[in-house]
């Protein structure tokens, strides 16, 4: 996917957001200088632990919150200056469900059509087109409260497709779905992107989902640590990494200090080594350090490995870290 057009779908520069404090809480820096360029037609996944600022970024992109500093433009238009014009081009799915569960699926769609001023003669054709992306055809008169989690998420997607957005913003759309539901939802998004050339921005704290995207951003404590194609991100760790589990990984690492071509991190009881000729190293270590090693494996690096390398920690919540 390198044929992205010139004007980026989303251009964010120097974005900061500080939540005002309350009587009980100090102000909180949620976004700390984010710069981001997302080409039109791209599938972008923003990952990061809970509390890293993903939803805050989405609230700003959808115009719900105004940032204290920074600029955002969507298809070249300044979001903060002409929010209403920009909003018409966006379909937003929030982390929390946005359908009225006492109403039927169809009634919810009608409300959406009313709010987006969709002409009534266009409602039916658009509904048919949007429904084709879902399994909801026979469930239009079901109350949303009785739909399964997966179908409810599909209903959210159909709803935002009604006004034919060019940019989809989805905040943890797969949260609460089972693995099958997740996969199905992700592949629907993929097809939408390809067939309609919709730009998709979604957040997820699941790295495996991010690996399916064109572009991945990793956010931590309000800062964008890295942003690139997933294959290029993992390539930063080389083709392979050697992962050793041991009671005392530091002791094993100590034996590597005379090998400048290697780099490693220790995390809990895990030693992760990057470098060249890892299979040879593996054999050597097996011989010399057998007693200390519980398991060892060579694997292709994943985004999660990159995250651990970048931050030196596993994916815990940023909030938990602060409370420690």
């Amino acid at each position, binding site marked *: 996917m390198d044929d992205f057009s010139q004007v980026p779908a989303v251009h964010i520069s120097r974005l*900061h*957001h*500080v*939540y*005002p404090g309350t009587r009980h809480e*100090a*102000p*909180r*820096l*949620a976004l*700390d200088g984010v710069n981001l360029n997302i080409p039109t037609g791209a599938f972008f996944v923003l990952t990061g632990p809970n509390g890293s600022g993903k939803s805050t970024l989405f*609230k700003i992109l*959808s*115009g*719900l*919150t*105004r*940032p*204290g*500093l920074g600029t955002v433009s969507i298809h070249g238009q300044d979001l903060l200056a002409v929010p*209403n014009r920009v*909003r*018409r081009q*966006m379909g*937003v799915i*929030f*982390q*929390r*469900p*946005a*359908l*009225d569960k*006492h*109403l039927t699926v169809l*009634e919810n769609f*009608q*409300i*959406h059509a*009313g*709010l*987006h*001023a969709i002409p009534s003669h266009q409602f039916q054709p658009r509904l048919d087109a949007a429904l084709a992306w879902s399994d909801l055809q026979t469930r239009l008169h079901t109350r949303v409260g009785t739909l399964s989690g997966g179908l409810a998420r599909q209903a959210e997607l159909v709803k935002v497709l009604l006004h034919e957005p060019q940019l989809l913003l989805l905040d943890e759309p797969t949260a609460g779905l089972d693995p099958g539901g997740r996969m199905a939802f992700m592949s629907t998004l993929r097809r939408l992107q390809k067939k309609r050339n919709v730009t998709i921005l979604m957040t997820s704290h699941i790295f495996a989902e991010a690996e399916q995207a064109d572009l991945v951003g990793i956010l931590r404590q309000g800062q964008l640590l890295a942003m690139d194609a997933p294959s290029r991100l993992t390539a930063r760790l080389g083709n392979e990494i050697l992962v050793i589990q041991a009671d005392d990984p530091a002791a094993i690492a100590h034996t590597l200090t005379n090998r400048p071509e290697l780099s490693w991190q220790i995390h809990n009881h895990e030693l992760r080594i990057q470098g060249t000729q890892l299979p040879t190293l593996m054999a050597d270590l097996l011989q010399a350090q057998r007693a200390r090693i519980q398991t060892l494996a060579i694997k292709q690096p994943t985004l999660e490995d990159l995250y651990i390398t970048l931050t030196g920690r596993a994916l815990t919540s940023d909030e938990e870290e*602060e409370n420690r």
Partner: protein
Amino acid sequence: MIRATLILARREWIRFFRQPHRVIGSLAQPLLIWAFLGAGFSPSFRTPGMEQISYTEYFYPGILLMLMLFSGIFSTITLIEDRAQGLMQGVLVSPAPRMAIVMGKVIGGIAIAGIQTLPLLLAAPLLDIPLTWSGLVWLTGGFLIATLGFTALGFLIAWNMESTAGFHAVMSVFLMPMWMLSGALFPLDHAPMWLKSLMIINPVTHALTLIRTPLYHSPMELLTSSSYWWAGGIAITWASACLVLALWRVNQVERGLDPARFISQSPKGPS
């Protein structure tokens, strides 16, 4: 704007009927209070100038007002649920003007209050209240002002609330007393001075005047009564002030602090 308002009002309406406990609850409570208090107080109730009316009858306009208060206020409680879910966010990111959120609630609230007050209105002839058709028109005017005031006030409170429990607390320490001190339960004239002053500054007292007077007086008498005009003026001012405040509040966009100032205040960040 109009379409968005009507579609949101319609949603309130559908939701109301989909939750039978709400229909029954908001109707049953005022009726029970009316029946019990009316039966209990009627034998001993005597108020100068109104010797000929029973307490059940005295209390009747107050109960009408209570129905309006309940349905107006409770229709705004859904706002708290909507905000806790992503529902309100969904409306806020749509191109529909934010005003439509207030107007949809208010119109929906008025419609729901109307359908709940109607059955009780049929009781008027049973009480020998001389309500005429033209009196009904004036009563409707009073009804619109009172419900507008209650729904807009409820909106203002609910918009700032995080939980429905908080709303119920406000209901019992603020809204119910407003109703109790409106002359619904006892007449203003013989209350002690401090209570009387509270009642006079209470806008709900004047809303009640707009409900009570058309039951007994012809439109001609209303038009020439300065106290009726005063009550009307005060109630309208109260209702429009609540509406304007709600519209202003809903148009406020959440915004972040200037990071430069934030960082200078606490150099090491949030914790």
